[in-house]
């Protein structure tokens, strides 16, 4: 292979990266020893559920908006939106038409985008902007100026979404997209606002005997291999390899005060945490 760089300028790791194979496990391991910079360590990523909050209309959305406004001067927030019932409709239709998962992701993204636009109309008078994924470089400025920004929660994978192991529904949706935003910026918190008090032993909408789980490790949750979950399974898998996000929190947006409590660091709802200890790396 041609060596296209002046090696004297590179670090030891750099020399290996330039001349070696990126699939080499030893080189991958060597990158562990680099610092982990938290780009926005004070930001909180808050995901507003689609079916659980947005689809309920003003009964659910207005109180959540009021709570967001009340927190603008106290906590900086990236607000991502879920998709919800229109995504379920378009997924059903697209599956029936034989379209692949990447096309479903393009379609589902449009629904999360609609919800983000509606949320932005409600917050516009407070100076809150909506940013597309390719505008995220402006995000720190808006957060410093106004305390929050809105984005649609889907990751921008478009046609490049990977197939699920089973079925036809895109496996990485708005829970995953918001989690990855929190991880890449090294956020303070990842909070999911849904319509339940968090995680239960069964679906509380269907099983009155379902017991609330206030705190559980991602390792234990994966080992339980539950038939249903409060969060996309991709988020649990990604938690295991995340560098920054050690826990995620689920609160009930239909109960005023839960979002604020979670932002203030209180253990409301359910916390899923990573029980594994990562080796220390130099701070950036």
């Amino acid at each position, binding site marked *: 292979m041609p060596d296209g760089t002046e090696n004297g300028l590179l670090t030891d790791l750099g020399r290996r990266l330039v001349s070696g194979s990126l699939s080499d496990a030893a080189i991958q391991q060597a990158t562990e020893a*680099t610092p982990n910079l938290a780009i926005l360590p004070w930001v909180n990523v808050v995901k507003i559920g689609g079916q659980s909050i947005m689809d309920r209309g003003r009964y659910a959305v207005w109180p959540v908006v009021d709570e967001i406004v009340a927190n603008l001067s106290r906590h900086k927030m990236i607000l991502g939106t879920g998709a919800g019932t229109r995504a379920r409709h378009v997924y059903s239709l697209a599956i029936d038409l034989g379209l692949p998962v990447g096309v479903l992701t393009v379609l589902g993204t449009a629904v999360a985008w609609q919800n983000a636009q509606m949320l932005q109309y409600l917050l516009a008078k407070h100076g809150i902007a909506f940013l597309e994924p390719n505008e995220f470089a402006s995000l720190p400025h808006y957060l410093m100026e106004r305390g929050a920004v809105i984005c649609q929660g889907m990751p921008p994978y478009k046609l490049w979404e990977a*197939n699920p192991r089973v*079925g036809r529904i895109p496996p990485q949706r708005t829970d995953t997209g918001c989690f990855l935003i929190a991880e890449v910026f090294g956020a303070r918190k990842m909070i999911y606002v849904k319509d339940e008090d968090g995680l239960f032993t069964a679906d509380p909408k269907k099983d009155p005997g379902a017991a609330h789980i206030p705190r559980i490790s991602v390792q234990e949750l994966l080992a339980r291999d539950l038939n249903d979950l409060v969060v996309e399974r991709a988020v649990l898998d990604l938690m295991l390899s995340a560098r920054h996000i050690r826990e995620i929190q689920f609160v009930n947006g239909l109960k005023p005060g839960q979002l604020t409590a979670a932002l203030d660091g209180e253990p409301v709802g359910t916390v899923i945490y990573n029980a594994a200890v990562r080796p220390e790396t130099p701070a950036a």
Partner: protein
Amino acid sequence: MSPHQGDAQHVVSRLMRESLMDKALIAGTESPVRAILPALNVIQIGGLSIMDRGHTSVLPLLDEIVGNQHEYMQVIGVGPGVRARHILSVGLDLGLPTGALATLAAKSSAQNAYMVSCLLASHGFVYLEAPFIVQLLPAMLAAARGAVFNGIPPYDLWEHPPAIGKIPPHGSDAGAYLVGEVFGARAIILVKDVDGLYTADPKTDPHATFIPEISAAELVRMKLPTLPIEAVVLDLLMRAKLARSVRIVNGLVPGNLSRALAGESVGTLIHA
């Protein structure tokens, strides 16, 4: 008060009110997928292996692509090469996270893809950024039977942190595979500077034997220390609905690409 007293306002569908995390519901969606562009061939030109070598490697390969333009519809993905390795090095040294590294590396492959599109411009090939692959690819294929895209998928800041280390796991092999899978392409051909897959590195081990065909699951089981293909592609192949194989060919050998397009067994075929 909302008319539904706080109930969600549902659109009627088979998935209405359901949890999309429910295993039974997910399994119930299993059904055939239609190939959107079944005549498409996805060709991935390696960055380090082909592009960085300059005209002696690149131009004969592009001539071969043009020679096949009449017979085969080709969409050309291009990898990033040594500039991505360099920015990975600087970025890692600064402590940047995987998502930032992925965003940066994707600009290097965009440069390579743009250069390839300039060299193929007189034959009608244009470079399409991801949003234009989503919307315009069929029109470009109808006009010129070919187009060029950025091999690295548009995961950007949303790239997955890998289990080990911080190198973005979805590179141009994964991007080319995913384009092939979503369109239901006829073939996915990864053009590199090796003949394909060996049991060991043939440069250092004289006992290395060539593997003409292997399943992704078997290759994962072999746990080879390095692979001429991104590991994530093996994982993706095991979940394939339509694109059930990828072929690795040596683009430094004239005729290999044409043989692969014709369906001959050249290089290594990795199948689902």
